[in-house]
């Protein structure tokens, strides 16, 4: 069965329809209204995982706050792996983006005088987190998506799955995508391409991330020769619901919630006495695991957990500041957080690592940009502070949009001949490797579940050499099993088994970069905690890990961290 | 959409009943006009053989009308929103006021009809 071939050309093409992607599209459209802008996403934009973000967006909004404090909090939070020039630019742009969102209709919660309110958040020395109740990501995504509808030059390809980047003369000239409705392979060519595909949480079994977070953009760039930076830096959020992994926002702690162990103790006083529940996520997650190992966790049918208690806040505060949390408790656990404590445990949540990109989103490949969670521009280093990632998407989404628009305005058009043959080759590759595989024995779902369990065990909150080495062995075996998959769905129409297989292919690649990078970093920094190397070693490892694709295991290189004003110190709270 | 969509759930069924009540109400109004025309000749000759039928039909239609009115007035709390002294008026209050107005209006009309009917 042949899929028909097709080509569409754009000036700027954005892969991914979340907060960063849509923000980039609008920025490009505003920079040059005559540009043809394409946005391709494997789901309708309202489904992007931005929608589940809860806590808020940090920005310097008041005279009592300062750019220097926000920058220092972020850099210290990153365990000094952040590139400080990037952080300094970020903190200056974040307030403008918050105001821009407000102008576009985002319903930021307010002070009595009508100005945008702020709440405390983990690792922030001042109250600077703007919030839209506790559905900040939902409101921000719907705001930018609905706003994007007024730009006719932004043309969307909804439910089109990108399988490969098109590269000509070492320059990115677009993508190959499968239109899920028809099964047709299309080449979407562009003078500049922005990857904004989000995180990779689904390589783990226990994650807050939705089904679509499979590291697609990271794998696409990686295979095209772009390195992935700091892939060992995986964030575990302290408070996920057991079994489902549904996120309970840090704002619960920001509003005054307590974390209690089995003995009813606010155990964080032994780990982060000065910040308590508002310490940074990596330290709190490790504290919880340590308490579990000491036998002070609650035991439940779905593993060990702690109590997150907000009963002392009262119904009025909860209904005003945390209504979504009350809803989640009621709908998924049958509890009322006004009267019951919330069971929580550390859960994979965010990826600090990602596509190597600079302050304007440019990757080492001309014509290719990256923004949002899939990119690593150097903002978050070894650990991200809560409420920095929503403004990250806005600031660097806009930056990438402008840079890509600028590049496209001067770039030469993409020639169609090589694209035609690249499209045919990619169509052939997917058809023969997946659709036509009738004699394999392995099920996609089973390899995926095995990979997820292995990642939880080998690349979790605490890592060891033995654990990671075993993980790498298993990942290699999963790769072999993947060669023998069998697809049971041979339809052209909305074949989600094919897209699951393509996603698993991507996930095995990025999982490998996580494992190898984690093995090589023989220190503990930020979210990467090695039991066998419990200390930080700046002399050797104050560097970014860069993983390059080869025919075998990833080749690792190291690059310098940019330090401007803040010399690395011991990190304690 | 299948032709029996309204049978799929109780909500749909009672909605169709509510909408349907307009038909008997319209028929009753026509019959009522006929009766008025008949009554032109004064009370002496006005006990036509159809009176029992008319009374029975009127009772049935009254039930329909009450059902329709109750559902309609109940919705006032959903549709109308007022603020009094900077706080929203609770919808229960709005609904109760609608029923109160209805009862008062019914009492007034009943009184007028009976008084002038004598």
């Amino acid at each position, binding site marked *: 069965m042949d899929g028909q071939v097709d080509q569409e050309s754009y000036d700027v093409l954005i892969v991914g329809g979340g907060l960063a992607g849509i923000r980039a599209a609008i920025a490009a459209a505003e920079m040059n209204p005559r540009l043809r802008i394409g946005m391709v996403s494997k789901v309708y934009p309202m489904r992007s995982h931005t929608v589940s973000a809860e806590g808020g967006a940090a920005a310097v909004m008041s005279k009592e706050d300062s750019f220097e404090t926000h920058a220092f909090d972020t850099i210290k939070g990153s365990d000094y792996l952040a590139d400080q020039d990037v952080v300094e630019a970020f903190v200056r742009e974040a307030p403008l983006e918050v105001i821009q969102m407000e*102008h576009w209709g985002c319903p930021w919660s307010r002070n*009595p005088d009508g100005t945008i309110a702020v709440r405390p958040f983990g690792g922030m020395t001042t109250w600077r987190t703007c919030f839209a109740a506790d559905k900040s990501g939902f409101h921000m995504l719907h705001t930018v998506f609905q706003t994007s509808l007024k730009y006719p030059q932004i043309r969307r390809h909804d439910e089109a799955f990108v399988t490969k980047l098109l590269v000509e003369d070492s320059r990115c000239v677009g993508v190959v995508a499968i239109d899920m409705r028809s099964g047709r392979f299309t080449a979407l060519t562009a003078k500049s391409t922005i990857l904004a595909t989000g995180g990779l949480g689904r390589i783990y079994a226990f994650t807050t991330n939705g089904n679509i977070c499979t590291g697609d953009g990271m794998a696409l760039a990686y295979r095209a020769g772009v390195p992935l930076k700091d892939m060992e830096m995986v964030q575990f959020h302290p408070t996920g619901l057991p079994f489902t992994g549904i996120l309970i926002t840090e704002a619960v702690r920001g509003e005054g919630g307590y974390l209690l162990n089995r003995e009813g103790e606010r155990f964080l006083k032994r780990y982060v006495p000065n910040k308590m529940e508002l310490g940074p996520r990596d330290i709190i997650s490790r504290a919880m695991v340590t308490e579990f190992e000491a036998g002070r966790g609650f035991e439940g049918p779905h593993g060990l957990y702690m109590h997150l208690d907000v009963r002392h806040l009262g119904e009025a505060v909860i209904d005003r500041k945390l209504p979504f949390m009350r809803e989640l408790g009621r709908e998924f656990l049958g509890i009322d957080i006004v009267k019951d404590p919330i069971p929580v445990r550390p859960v994979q949540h965010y990826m600090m690592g990602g596509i190597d990109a600079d302050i304007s989103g440019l990757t080492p490949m001309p014509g290719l940009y990256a923004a949002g969670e899939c990119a690593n521009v150097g903002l978050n280093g070894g650990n991200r502070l809560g409420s920095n990632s929503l403004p990250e998407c806005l600031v660097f989404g806009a930056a990438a949009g402008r840079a890509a628009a600028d590049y496209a305005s001067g770039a030469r058009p993409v020639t169609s001949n090589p694209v035609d043959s690249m499209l045919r080759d990619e169509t052939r590759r997917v058809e023969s490797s997946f659709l036509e595989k009738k004699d394999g024995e392995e099920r996609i*779902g089973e390899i995926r579940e095995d990979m997820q369990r292995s990642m939880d065990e080998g690349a979790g909150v605490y890592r060891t050499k033995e654990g990671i080495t075993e993980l790498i062995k298993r990942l290699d075996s999963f790769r072999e099993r993947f060669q023998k998959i069998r697809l049971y769905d041979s*339809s052209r129409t909305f074949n989600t088994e094919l897209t699951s297989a393509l996603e698993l292919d991507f996930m095995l690649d990025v999982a490998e970069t996580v494992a190898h990078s984690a093995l090589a970093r023989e220190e503990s920094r930020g979210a990467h905690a090695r039991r066998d190397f419990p200390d930080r070693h700046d002399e050797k490892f104050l560097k970014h890990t860069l993983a390059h694709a080869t025919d075998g295991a990833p080749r690792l290189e190291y690059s310098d961290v940019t330090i401007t004003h803040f010399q690395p110190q011991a990190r304690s709270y | 959409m299948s032709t029996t969509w309204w049978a799929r759930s109780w909500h749909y069924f009672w909605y169709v009943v509510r909408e349907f009540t307009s038909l008997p109400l319209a028929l009753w109004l026509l019959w009522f006009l006929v009766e008025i025309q008949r009554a032109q000749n004064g009370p002496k000759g006005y006990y036509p053989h159809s009176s029992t039928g008319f009374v029975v039909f009127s009772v049935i239609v009254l039930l329909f009308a009450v059902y329709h009115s109750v559902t309609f007035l109940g919705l006032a709390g959903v549709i109308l929103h007022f603020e009094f002294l900077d706080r929203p008026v609770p919808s229960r209050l709005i609904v109760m006021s609608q029923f109160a107005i209805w009862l008062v209006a019914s009492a007034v009309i009943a009184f007028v009809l009976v008084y002038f009917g004598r």
Partner: protein
Amino acid sequence: MTEKKITVRATRFDPDRDEKPRLQSYEIPFPDDSMVVLDALNFIKAHVDGSLSYRWSCRMGICGSCGMMVDGIPKLACNVFLRDYWPRSVTVEPLNNFPIVRDLVIDMGDFMHKLQSVKPWIIRKQELPLGAGEHRQTNEQIDGFRQFSQCINCMLCYAACPVYGLNHEFLGPAATALARRYNLDSRDQGLKQRLPVIADPEGVWECSFVGECSVVCPKGVDPAKAIQQTKLDTTMRFVLPYGNRE
């Protein structure tokens, strides 16, 4: 001790091979009381029949992807507990009133078009410059439209609405609620631009207040209220000589 099992029947339809949709039965293990319909579908796809197609993502009732008919009622599959049906079987079908694409996947094109048609963005006569900071707005003013801003675009309301089922030109609940969200936002001045679409005969006036949309809405948006309030508002604007309700 025998393992608990549950039977799930799901619609199957491949336009390349099937003339019409049919139901396929799957019996799967039911080991955990916390399992939802989505978990059942995921189990089937991973271990029993990889060709079952459906949309899902967040599994926490916020992305709006997994709207389906569960035993004839539109629901989010991620928030329907199997324990409420066991030991009976559960029947899962694609959302009513939308064309079926494949198995449990429906065509969202009409919905997306309607969403865009109400101009769901802030419209102002004069844009405030960024440097001027935020529009002043109070939490009470946000409370005025907050409920209508909670829509996750899951389309359960369109599946529940018999009027939409009988007439696809009807603007429908979610689109009207979204229009009202912007019309009530103190920062917006775009009511006039939205009127042609919402005050159209096939806009709010097609609604005869069945009310089922608000019953099935998983986020408490109450689109029925939005539509009836819009009817009242647009009428008052028309009737009052100095119709200034913005």
